[in-house]
């Protein structure tokens, strides 16, 4: 195939024989010692070979360098994400402290005699429903995790949809408060996936997912709606779930932005809006 075919007939054949012809085909008789040209030709050959070596080496080295560069960039980005997450956690705890302070002040104001009778009970009931106060009580803890042999982007992982279903089943079971990995579900909470992570209250969660609920004690039974849902997730997708009845303590919900509460225009008057 590499020999130049003297009677190449077809177009392809002549193309192949020309393109694949041996460079040294014209150097006809094999001689005993390698042929030597003038010295400067040998020197040029040396330079050409050196150029080839340099070419190959430089590309290999620059490719390795590019990989290193990518790794460095990735590491730097990961560091920034970690720092930002820590900042968010720090500020969130500050917000929680302030919220607790606000709740205390609210109680003080409501404890004063000159407010409408019954408004304190009403405020307590609303706070429990809206999830702005911590909640403790008998309940269940459900731990769900990916299937042991789960691969990336497969359905054998816990999806945002699964956590939504579990939370809704717990509400149906009569739960009065739910938290996922320590994030309280309130009326404005979204359980979504962002990239590869599940996000609750704009915070990415890490596996395994721990769903705690106050109330909903019946969820431990396998015949309950929650039990059936978990069994279905286990048999269809291999998700691993464990349900335990225990006393749970839920944190207050993270209210990112009050919808109706407004700062009092005249703080001196002590009004609560």
């Amino acid at each position, binding site marked *: 195939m590499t020999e130049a075919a003297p009677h190449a007939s077809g177009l392809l054949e002549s193309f192949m024989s020309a393109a694949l012809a*041996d*460079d040294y085909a014209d150097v006809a008789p094999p001689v005993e010692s390698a042929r030597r040209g003038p010295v400067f*030709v040998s020197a040029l050959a040396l330079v050409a070979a050196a150029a080839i070596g*340099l070419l190959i080496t*430089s*590309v290999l080295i620059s490719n390795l360098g590019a990989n290193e560069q990518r790794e460095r960039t990735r590491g730097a980005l990961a560091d920034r994400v970690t720092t930002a997450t820590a900042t968010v956690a720090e500020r969130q705890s500050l917000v929680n402290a302030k919220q607790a302070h606000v709740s205390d002040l609210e109680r003080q104001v409501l404890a004063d005699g000159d407010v409408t009778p019954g408004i304190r009970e009403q405020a307590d009931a609303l706070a429990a429903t809206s999830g702005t106060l911590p909640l403790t009580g008998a309940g269940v803890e459900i731990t769900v995790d990916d299937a042991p042999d789960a691969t990336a982007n497969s359905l054998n992982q816990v999806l945002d949809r699964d956590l939504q279903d579990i939370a809704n089943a717990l509400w149906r079971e009569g739960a009065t408060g739910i938290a996922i990995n320590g994030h309280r579900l309130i009326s404005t909470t979204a359980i979504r996936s962002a990239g590869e992570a599940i996000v609750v209250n704009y915070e990415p969660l890490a596996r395994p997912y721990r769903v705690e609920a106050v109330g909903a004690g019946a969820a431990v039974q396998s015949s309950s709606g929650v039990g059936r849902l978990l069994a279905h997730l286990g048999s269809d997708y291999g998700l691993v779930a464990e349900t335990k009845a225990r006393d749970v303590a839920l944190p207050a919900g993270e209210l990112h932005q009050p919808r109706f509460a407004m700062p009092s225009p005249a703080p001196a008057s002590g009004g609560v809006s």
Partner: protein
Amino acid sequence: MIAIIGLLIGVAVGIVWHPVVPIALQPYLPIAIVAALDAVFGGFRALMERRFDDRIFIVSFLSNVVIASFLVFLGDQLGVGAQMSTGVVVVLAMRIFANAAAIRRILFRA
């Protein structure tokens, strides 16, 4: 022999010197390397067949690299850069395989 020494010198220089490839040349470098490899294999085969020739080695290296890079450059300008690269690489790879087969036949008689 001279070619092998030159190759080693080039590799050593590359490792010591850490050359940075200009961005503008980067698309043509892989093609240039495949073309250079073709010249290397051809030269090695000729060496095995005892008909190596410095002049042919230089000419084949230079023409291979220049023509391959020019074809890819032209392809880029015409908007068929990827296809042109594929074509060039296919032809060069076939030549490399043919030369490798010849070298193998000489070395192992198989």
